[in-house]
């Protein structure tokens, strides 16, 4: 076609003939058939035909027909050439055909658009109709894609299945084919999603559902998790190899649901290999894997956290039961139990920090588990009491045996503070601790450092109010030393009152810090009376307006008893000393005479006499020589007594005051509840019942868990005492009475 200045308009018939010829040549080229390429003149010539036909004056301006022709060419090509070729083939061969013809079509559209380009510039723009490229793509979509996508999809999915089962497939081919789906959406992902992805996901769903069912039966939990992890990895790779990236989140969710979520309960509870077993057997790798897998799923960690909590609770409960069973005659071995609980805590906290990446859900599970079994009673002892006894023994041992290095003591103290956090009756612990602290401070050695250390830690965790009394007690002991020095100075200088040959030490306790003790009107031996008097005199000089209350029940005394064989030093309590000294003046005394002389209560005297005449060391002879003290007994100094030791300590067994401690704490709780209720109502003025109760519980929860019934009772009491009143309109609401 040579370019000539032809004034003759090109008819449609002629023009189309020329175009058809060009198209034929084009198709031969792009189909790879032997055909010389277009020369530049030919290329320009094709463009010019269209150009001329468009700019010709009417009635020969053929833009419209040319536009139609363009569409017709492509349609014919699609229908008559492309589609039949594809339909001939099957399976992977068909995919290849599709891929090939897709590429060819793209080139065809491109070239043809170049020829017809002039239409794009004016005719199409002016009329707002689809561009040549769009027409081309739409044509392919309508006449080829629509007809073949179903079968293509079937083949693709079959190939993917093959790959899942371990065989190699042509990934590049799949990538091209799936790209075709995307492109045929012409701007959105609808075709890809509806014609491929939906089916793919359904197929994936049933595939992994089947796998899950069979694996869960055959495999142990760790094995299963490894397979699951592997599957997820492979599917993600699949996306990068040939799926569209949009598919990834849906695919991952699908696999996770089937492999991990739906079977979670079965998997985690697998006997001998599930969560419980892994925790028991220190399988940190498997547990970390479990965390990784479930962490990726929204709310996926919850069943794992639940399994964790149940396991820890079961472990804790079995420790409690062991201790309960081992407790013979109601005495529980709290040293063993508390140590075991501490170890349990360390073990499972390690899991939380390592395998479970310090996730709050697991911290919470651990806390909940411990709160369940740490509040159980063992053989009648509450956990609060046991923990206090544990500390008592720990410190007593540490004070006597300096070989224990401080760091183990410190870490044990840390553990105690952690455990206390789980115990709801913290105020009960405080009270038991205080009672035992008093005994430690007054009778025997104590380490000031250790005592202060635990108090500092408790204060940090639970606030100053928790430890203020105990700190006061320890401080008293410190001040006591200085006071004693002052007293001894006084004795030296005063020249009065140092009773003959008696060394005397006084410890002054601040009332309020120390537990309350009964006083007694014990009649002391004269020598002791002199000591008391001299201290009183000294103290009155030093201080003003302070009253001293003497607690003889807490004192102790070193006596030398001159037995026939040899003198022996006896370390006894003041009460015991008073009884023994009574025999300095008389050989023989009856029970009644002792009571009259000493003015002790019956209970106290019986206890003392028992320890001196019926126990291991019989310093007194009892008549009759029965095992118990009766009011008709009489006693004599047992001069025949001897022992290989030169010093004997005779402890008075302490009175069991567990009941009293519980009563005291109950009383304090009532006051605390009252105070809390009044405080809340004072600031809120009007409050419905349930809110009042819950706020009260919240306020007090740091120290103890208040009984709802007790709160109700206190509210009623406050109503009777005119602190609160019920709202007349709404009986469920209370008002503060100013």
């Amino acid at each position: 076609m040579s370019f000539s200045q032809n004034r003759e308009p090109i008819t449609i018939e002629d023009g189309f003939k020329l175009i058809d010829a060009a198209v034929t040549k084009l198709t031969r080229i792009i189909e790879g058939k032997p055909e010389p390429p277009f020369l530049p003149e030919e290329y320009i010539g094709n463009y010019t035909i269209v150009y001329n036909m468009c700019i010709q004056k009417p009635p020969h301006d053929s833009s419209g027909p040319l536009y139609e022709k363009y569409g017709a060419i492509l349609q014919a090509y699609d229908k008559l050439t492309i589609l039949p070729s594809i339909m001939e083939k099957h399976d992977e061969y068909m995919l290849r055909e599709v891929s090939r013809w897709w590429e060819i079509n793209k080139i065809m559209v491109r070239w043809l658009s170049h020829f017809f380009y002039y239409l794009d510039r004016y005719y199409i723009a002016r009329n707002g109709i689809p561009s040549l490229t769009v027409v081309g793509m739409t044509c392919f979509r309508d006449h080829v894609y629509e007809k073949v996508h179903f079968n293509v999809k079937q083949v693709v999915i079959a190939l993917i299945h093959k790959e899942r089962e371990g065989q190699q497939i042509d990934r590049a081919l799949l990538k091209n084919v799936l790209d075709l789906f995307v492109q045929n959406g012409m701007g959105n992902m609808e075709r890809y999603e509806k014609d491929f992805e939906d089916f793919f996901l359904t197929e994936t769903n049933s595939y992994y559902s089947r796998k899950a069912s069979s694996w869960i039966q055959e495999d142990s939990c760790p094995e299963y998790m490894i397979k699951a992890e592997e599957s997820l990895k492979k599917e993600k790779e699949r996306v990068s190899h040939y799926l569209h990236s949009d598919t990834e989140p849906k695919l991952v969710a699908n696999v996770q649901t089937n492999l991990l979520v739906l079977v979670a309960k079965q998997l985690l509870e697998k006997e001998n290999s599930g969560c419980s077993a892994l925790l028991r057997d220190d399988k940190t790798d498997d547990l970390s894997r479990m965390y990784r897998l479930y962490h990726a799923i929204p709310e996926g960690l919850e069943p794992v956290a639940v399994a964790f909590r149940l396991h820890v609770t079961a472990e804790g409960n079995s420790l409690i039961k062991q201790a309960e069973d081992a407790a013979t005659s109601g005495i529980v071995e709290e040293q063993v139990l508390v140590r075991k609980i501490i170890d349990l805590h360390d073990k499972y906290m390690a899991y939380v920090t390592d395998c479970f990446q310090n996730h709050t859900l697991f911290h919470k599970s651990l806390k909940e588990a411990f709160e369940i079994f740490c509040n159980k009673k063992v053989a009648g002892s509450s956990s609060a009491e046991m923990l206090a006894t544990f500390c008592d023994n720990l410190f007593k041992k540490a004070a006597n045996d300096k070989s224990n290095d401080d760091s183990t003591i410190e870490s044990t103290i840390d553990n105690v503070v952690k455990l206390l956090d789980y115990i709801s009756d913290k105020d009960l612990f405080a009270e038991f601790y205080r009672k035992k602290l008093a005994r430690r401070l007054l009778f025997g050695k104590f380490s000031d450092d250790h005592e202060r250390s635990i108090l500092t830690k408790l204060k940090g965790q639970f606030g100053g109010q928790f430890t203020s009394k105990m700190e006061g007690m320890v401080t008293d002991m410190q001040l006591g030393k200085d006071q004693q020095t002052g007293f001894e100075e006084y004795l030296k200088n005063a020249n009065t009152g140092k009773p003959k040959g008696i060394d005397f030490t006084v410890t002054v306790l601040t009332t309020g810090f120390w537990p309350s003790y009964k006083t007694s009107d014990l009649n002391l031996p004269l020598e002791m009376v002199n000591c008391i008097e001299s201290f009183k005199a000294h103290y009155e000089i030093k201080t003003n307006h302070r009253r001293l209350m003497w607690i003889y029940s807490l004192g102790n005394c070193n006596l030398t008893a001159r037995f026939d064989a040899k003198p022996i030093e006896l370390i006894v309590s003041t009460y015991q000393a008073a009884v023994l000294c009574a025999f300095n003046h008389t050989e023989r005394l009856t029970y009644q005479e002792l009571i009259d002389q000493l003015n002790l209560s019956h209970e106290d005297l019986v206890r003392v006499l028992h320890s001196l005449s019926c126990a291991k060391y019989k310093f007194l002879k009892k008549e009759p020589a029965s095992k118990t003290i009766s009011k008709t007994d009489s006693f004599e100094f047992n001069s025949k007594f001897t022992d290989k030791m030169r010093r004997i300590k005779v402890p008075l067994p302490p009175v069991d005051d567990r009941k009293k401690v519980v009563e005291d704490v109950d009383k304090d709780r009532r006051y605390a509840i009252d105070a809390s209720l009044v405080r809340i109502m004072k600031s809120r003025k009007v409050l419905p019942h349930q809110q009042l109760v819950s706020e009260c519980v919240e306020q007090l929860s740091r120290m103890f868990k208040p009984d709802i019934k007790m709160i109700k009772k206190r509210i009623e009491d406050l109503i009777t005492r005119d602190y609160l009143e019920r709202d007349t309109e709404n009986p469920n609401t209370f008002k503060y009475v100013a």
Partner: protein
Amino acid sequence: MRRSSAASKKKSDSITSSTTDLFRSGPSKATSKEMDRIDHLFNQYANTSSNLIDPEGIEELCSNLEVPHTDIRILMLAWKMKAEKQGYFTQEEWRRGLKALRADTLSKLKKALPELEKEVRRQSNFADFYAYAFRYCLTEEKQKSIDIETICQLLDIVMGSTFRAQVDYFVEYLKIQNDYKVINMDQWMGFDRFCNEISFPEMTEYNPELAWPLVLDSFVEWISEKQA
């Protein structure tokens, strides 16, 4: 002691001045005749030395009205009078009550009783009457609670006819339990609410987490255990 001294104080004022004080606003002739009859009736039952109607007088009044003296209607009468002390009516209280009932003779008073009962049982008045019944039994100064036995009797009188079942069960419970030796006003009012709001014996609406007095929580628990 306070009561009688007040009464004697009134006595020292001339009677006519106090009556005219009370009724200056109303039509004079008819009401003063009424008042005289009321006073006359008062004097029939009053103890002359104390100028109060005392328990003996009340008993006589009751037998004349043909009403048992533990009947609720006497309590209602006391309420109408706003009588302060149990077992005694002062002249002022007597006047107040009978004037309000427009009863200046014994027969009129008798006839007025059913009407009075209807009035009291009206929802709007009953709670007031119920609270009054409790206060009426507080005999000592500063007394805030009533012992169980008296409460049981009072419940029977005040609520027996309307809530027989609840009263019977509650009385039984109060007698066997050990937590409470007395009942206070709040608990007393709670029982009225209970009878009105909670179906019996199903008690499905009862929720111990609400602000019901604890004694009722225990009562409901006790019944549930019995029913089980």
